[in-house]
């Protein structure tokens, strides 16, 4: 079992650009959640996808959007990047009744 896999591992973008991050959940999991972790802080919940729909959303602007595919994999899109979007983006997969398993994350740097 490959666990939760994320790509890419690192990314450098310029302010104003758009970025897409990808996540493949652990086998048997149907729910994908995305978190943003700024340096020195705990992760913050962005949103959660289940059955290809956004089920829950944290306090993030509409520049952050996502998608879930029929195979349960997911994408996180961020438009109009700001310097403050620089962070580690974590994907977590789960299914009803069990804890979330996290991927290794994508380190996004906006310059």
């Amino acid at each position: 079992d490959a666990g939760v896999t994320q790509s890419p591992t690192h990314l450098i973008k310029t302010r104003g650009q758009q970025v897409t991050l990808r996540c493949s959940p652990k086998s048997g999991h149907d729910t994908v959640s995305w978190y943003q972790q700024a340096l020195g802080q705990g992760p913050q919940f962005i949103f959660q996808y289940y059955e290809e729909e956004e089920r829950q959303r944290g306090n993030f602007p509409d520049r952050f959007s996502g998608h879930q595919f029929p195979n349960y994999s997911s994408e996180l899109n961020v438009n109009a990047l700001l310097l403050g979007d620089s962070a580690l983006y974590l994907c977590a997969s789960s299914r009803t009744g069990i804890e979330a398993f996290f991927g290794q994350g994508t380190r996004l740097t906006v310059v």
Partner: protein
Amino acid sequence: EDKVVQSPLSLVVHEGDTVTLNCSYEVTNFRSLLWYKQEKKAPTFLFMLTSSGIEKKSGRLSSILDKKELFSILNITATQTGDSAIYLCAVDNSSAGNMLTFGGGTRLMVKP
């Protein structure tokens, strides 16, 4: 607003010491409290607690939840250098599950 606060922010101990990490929370519709260990990037799951007063144990690590006083502790006995990490506490307060509110973490360093 839901809030999870961890203390201390950081801790330096020597191998063999026992440490206690604290987590207090204020959330609506509590579902569960989770502890994760983060060494480099991916937080790895340690414990999920849903009931007060029932200790969960895994090797040298143990944790307990007090739902009346709204806190949890994570104990690590006989610490080893491999325990050096950031320990994250999170609360799930969502009806759908796994919408986690995290604390800021406790950075533990274990010196040889």
